[in-house]
């Protein structure tokens, strides 16, 4: 009994790391640009398929295809930004959030159906030679791929945090978040900052997708669920800091695992949504969008 519970929590943490990684991408984009890109889940799905096909057609190891998935999503991100999202940068904040949300829905409808046409509606996952292996510690199972995925997610999140804190461009991004007008005055091209943030967000989504396709499974219709997960995590993570958001992901993972343990796996999604509504009820005006740092 206790072992099952601990096992559940471990699985929850492992999955929660991917929630965190996905949400950090969306949170960065929202924090910097105030674009609420609800097609974030679809970007993740595309990353998953990129790695899936690289593995199935060319036998590229999924962990090696991570940069390729990121690259593919960078391209998608640039196209989406230049074609659609850049047209909203001049709007006032509330209108921008709403308009980008609607655009995001349009994009997600298109991408989801594109994936379904191209790759059918079947569940897919990458099965490598080491997929079934796991470490065991005190009778608790640690599947290798999921543990490695968690490490990768953690490394990416810390790298992003360091980039924002230490690099010159990262500081420019933080400055832009704080006051875009002031940033423009000192010579920062805020459009470029927005573009870079958007691309980083897309790349993170793509890599999260790869990790999901290794440890779990992907399907064209997964986008909405993952977008909601990201929104929930952003809310739980609260203060909009990168590390906080990642921790929010872990919390959601554990909360889901405990729910699955207590009332059955069918309700694991519900707990996140309920937590989300609960936080909304307590803090109705504005949850995410507080600055990094």
């Amino acid at each position, binding site marked *: 009994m206790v072992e099952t519970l601990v096992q559940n929590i471990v699985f929850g943490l492992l999955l929660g790391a991917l929630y965190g990684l996905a949400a950090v991408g969306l949170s960065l984009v929202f924090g910097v640009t105030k674009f609420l890109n609800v097609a974030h889940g679809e970007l993740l799905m595309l990353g998953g398929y990129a790695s899936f096909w690289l593995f199935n057609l060319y036998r590229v190891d999924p962990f090696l295809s991570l940069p390729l998935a990121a690259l593919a999503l960078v391209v998608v991100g640039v196209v989406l930004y230049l074609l659609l999202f850049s047209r909203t940068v001049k709007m006032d904040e509330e209108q921008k959030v709403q308009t980008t949300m609607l655009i995001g829905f349009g994009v997600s409808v298109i991408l989801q159906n594109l994936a379904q046409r191209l790759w059918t509606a079947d569940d897919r996952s990458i099965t490598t030679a080491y997929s079934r292996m796991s470490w065991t510690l005190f009778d608790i199972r640690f599947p290798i791929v999921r543990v490695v995925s968690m490490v990768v997610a953690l490394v990416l999140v810390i790298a992003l945090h360091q980039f924002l804190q230490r690099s010159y461009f990262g500081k420019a991004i933080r400055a832009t978040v704080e006051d875009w007008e002031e940033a*423009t*005055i*000192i010579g920062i091209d805020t459009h470029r900052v927005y573009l870079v943030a958007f691309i980083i967000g897309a790349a993170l989504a793509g890599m999260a997708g790869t990790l999901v396709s290794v440890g779990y499974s992907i399907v064209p219709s997964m986008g909405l669920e993952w977008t909601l997960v990201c929104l929930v995590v952003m809310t739980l993570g609260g203060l909009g800091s990168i590390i906080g958001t990642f921790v929010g992901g872990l919390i959601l993972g554990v909360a889901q695992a405990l729910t699955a343990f207590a009332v059955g796996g069918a309700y694991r999604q519900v707990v996140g949504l309920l937590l989300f509504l609960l936080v909304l009820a307590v803090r109705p005006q504005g949850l995410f969008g507080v600055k990094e740092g």
Partner: protein
Amino acid sequence: MLNVENINVGYKDLQVLWGVSFQVNQGELVALIGPNGAGKTTTLKAIMGLRRPWSGAIYFEGCNLCKAPAHKMAELGIAMVPEGGRVFTGLTVLENLELGAFPPHARKHMAQTLEEMYQLFPRLAERKFQRAGTLSGGERQMLAIARALMSRPKLLMLDEPSFGLAPLLVDRIFAKIQEINQAGMTILLVEQNVRAALELAHRSYVIQNGRIVGTGTSEELLSFEFVRSAYLG
């Protein structure tokens, strides 16, 4: 150096500036004085490309600023100190200064300029790892000026540097401004504090209700009855 020619500027359907023209020559310290809401800040924003004029032109060293994107102004050599010493409060003092050197030509000399700034404002050196949000009003104003100078500008524009500061601090800040000007920097100073500005400036323009209504040296302006009655009581 800076030629503002007959610009009309507004927000939506509200016109703020009406045919404003003035110039600033190399090495000068020019003040733009006028009451609250006269259009002083809008003038600076128009020069920085943050508000596009409906008509008219702005030339900086012969280059038409109206055709340049706003973030290029710093690269062209114009720096602005925003009103009230607005700085990036979430970043440290050092990070603020580093970002001030964003234009490529300034970034090359970042270390050297930073040293100069610490000499000019020793206070900032003491507080370099502190978040800018923890600074006092006067310190913030110094940081804002130093950050602007980090871009090694040819023209420094200050928007109400006396805003919200105690008289003693105002004197200190204005002394610094004079010092910077005497070192060769061209300065456009926008002020509501007319007495302090006139003491400092070589020439001044008086702006009222979005129009330039008078210009001259400080002595000439002080002889204008309306300047005396309106601003000096």
